[in-house]
């Protein structure tokens, strides 16, 4: 199947590994991702004027319209981009997906698995925007747990998986991000698995020895494309 792909700004820079991972996994699943031409920033959380935010994402929806007819929908891996796109499409004319919606157990069961996760502990960490608000949250809030446990891995951190890491405050009040991230780090065990570039940066910045990976890293590891986690 073909999807329009909206990487968003982070995935072209600091979260390039997530971008590569999403592209690889969808290729493995036999899908084609076609990047929306000349896409622009979604505005993240930086605009006090809601109309500005909506206009940014509407421009992206219009540009994705050039691909319509051949695409099954738009994929937006960054949780902030995903939320902004969903909110701009009030009429629900564009199917907009977060990769976690499409990487459900039925789909990931078709991946060619080469390694299991037995004996390893993971904390699937969703953070805020994949869980809230209800209108734009992903429907299956245990999708990462399902995948990890199916491959024999142990999951932890249920109490902190939807808490805020404070990533949004990182370049405003970094002490606040440090305190909030440490709640996640201290309340969980093993490798932390995320899907948000901002959570990745916040948790990486304040963890001493913990491994923070993207869910796509985990998928590439079990399918043999990554040697280590």
């Amino acid at each position, binding site marked *: 199947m073909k999807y329009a792909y909206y990487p968003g*700004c*982070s995935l*072209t*820079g*600091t*979260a*390039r*590994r997530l971008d590569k991972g999403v592209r690889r996994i969808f290729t493995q699943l036999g899908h084609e991702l076609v990047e929306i031409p*000349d*896409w*622009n*920033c979604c*505005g*993240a*959380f*930086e*605009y*006090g*004027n*809601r*109309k*500005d935010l909506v*206009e*940014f994402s*509407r*421009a*992206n929806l*219009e*540009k994705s319209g050039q691909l319509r007819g051949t695409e099954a929908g738009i994929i937006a891996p960054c949780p902030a981009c995903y939320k902004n796109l969903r909110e701009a499409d009030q009429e629900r004319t564009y199917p907009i997906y977060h990769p976690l919606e499409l990487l459900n157990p039925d789909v990931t069961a078709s991946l060619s698995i080469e390694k299991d996760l037995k004996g390893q502990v993971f904390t699937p960490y969703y953070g*805020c*925007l994949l869980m*809230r*608000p*209800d209108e734009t949250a992903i429907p299956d809030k245990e999708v990462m747990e399902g995948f990890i446990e199916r491959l024999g891995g142990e999951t932890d951190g249920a109490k902190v998986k939807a*808490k*805020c890491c*404070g*990533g*949004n*405050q990182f*370049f*405003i*009040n*970094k002490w*606040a991000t440090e*305190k*909030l991230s440490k*709640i996640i780090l201290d309340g969980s065990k093993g490798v932390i698995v995320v899907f948000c570039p901002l959570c990745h*940066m916040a948790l*990486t*910045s304040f963890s001493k020895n913990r491994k923070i990976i993207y869910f796509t890293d985990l998928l590439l590891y079990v399918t043999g494309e990554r040697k280590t986690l």
Partner: protein
Amino acid sequence: MPKIDVIAELAGYKREDFSVCLGCKICGSVCTINDLSVPANPQALLLALFLQKEVAHDDPVLAYCTNCYNCVSACPWRIRIPEIVRAVKGEMGLETPFEKAFKSSIGVWGRVYEPYVFLKSLPFLLREGYLAYVIRWKEYMNFHLPHKVKDMGRRQRKDRKER
């Protein structure tokens, strides 16, 4: 003091929409700011705006809102407090140099070009000690050339027309 009508419009509301607030303070009880051991009361901020009372520049909700949306999920009326907070911050000019650089990048490139944001906010980053994290940011360091977005949509077309 930001005008309630302006804030309401910026956040996509009408003034009377705020009158539905029941004063239950559940927004405060679920607020992430509590985890910072800082007392947060978003309901008091809403009330102050509604009654046109003074809002302190250092109100903890304005200073520390993380956009976690816990309050929105808990609110019986689903009042989108983070968006109201963003509108108030914008109106009161409470943006940090990093936030200004972020928006400036969007103005210049149409995207957040991280090397540009980093350089533009470098004095702030140096002053606030962010370089201490650079050693942990190795995987984030990858240079790429910027892309200049040609079409920013209706807003850009409207701006051009007005010019």
